[in-house]
């Protein structure tokens, strides 16, 4: 088998890999659209400094923060399409941090 045939076979084999094995990579235009959404979310977040959102102030900030956080993780870091073990490692650290430190804050009566 010539080198070029071998390389072509390798590429064909790569294309046969299931979606959950190799992360999917989108077009540059897709990433720019995501960045525009992130910019709008940041603008909404920042607007809470000047505009009175009343009782919606904290929920708005937390929703914007979670949306931005997971958009970057899922799309820019490609975790949505990554292998389960990578997702497990990251989310375990994240969940552990949340549980441990929310527990610590509760111990110090932070939420009262």
């Amino acid at each position: 088998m010539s080198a070029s045939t071998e390389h072509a076979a390798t590429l064909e084999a790569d294309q046969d890999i299931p979606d959950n094995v190799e992360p999917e990579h989108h077009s540059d235009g897709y990433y720019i659209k995501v960045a525009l959404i992130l910019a709008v979310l940041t603008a909404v977040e920042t607007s809470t400094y000047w505009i009175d959102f009343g009782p919606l102030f904290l929920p708005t900030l937390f929703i914007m923060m979670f949306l931005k956080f997971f958009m970057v993780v899922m799309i820019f870091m490609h975790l949505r399409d990554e292998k389960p073990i990578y997702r497990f490692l990251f989310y375990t650290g994240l969940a552990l941090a949340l549980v441990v430190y929310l527990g610590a804050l509760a111990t110090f009566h932070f939420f009262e």
Partner: protein
Amino acid sequence: MADTAVHSEAGHEPDSHGHHEHGHAHASGLSNNKLAMWMFLGSECLLFGGLIAVYMLYRGRHAGSPGPDQLWDVPLTSISSFVLLMSSLTMVLAVSAAKQGDDRRTINWLVTTALLGATFVGAQVYEFTHFYREGVGFTTSLFSSSFYTLTGFHGVHVTVGVLMLLALSGIMRRSRVTGDKAETVELVGLYWHFVDIVWIVIFTLVYLIPA
């Protein structure tokens, strides 16, 4: 020549035996480098979680010295947050270009990302200098200690990221990247995006929610 183009487009350089390197892939098909990076990022969640929790506990402890509400310059911080967010876009474009085997475009996006990161660090240095001139040093109060520790740790992470980006662009320019070039760019990208998501949390919890 055509062969090289095919390899280049796939983002995987063949070794001397004509085989593809997949970032020291394990028999399981997993890349050890990527596995280590995700494990590192998972552990970093615990580091920053601790620093954020300590800040949240102490942000009201500043008797006799300026507190968050007197110090924060939200418009300036919003602009620097936007700059860091956009650096995530340029980073993902660098990874995308690396996957396509376009070295020139990869280097350009890496350098752009580094410049945006350096701008963010510059804004943070300006902010720290301003606070210091307002009489808020590291040991002034529990609030200031926890604030400088949290944002300082993040700033150091961004600075390390900028150095990694510049080093990688220099190494790529000299064509001295060993192993899978696209994966190397992706690993630096993962670190950079993580620095960005940490700031997304800090910006909301520290700057936008009043103490």
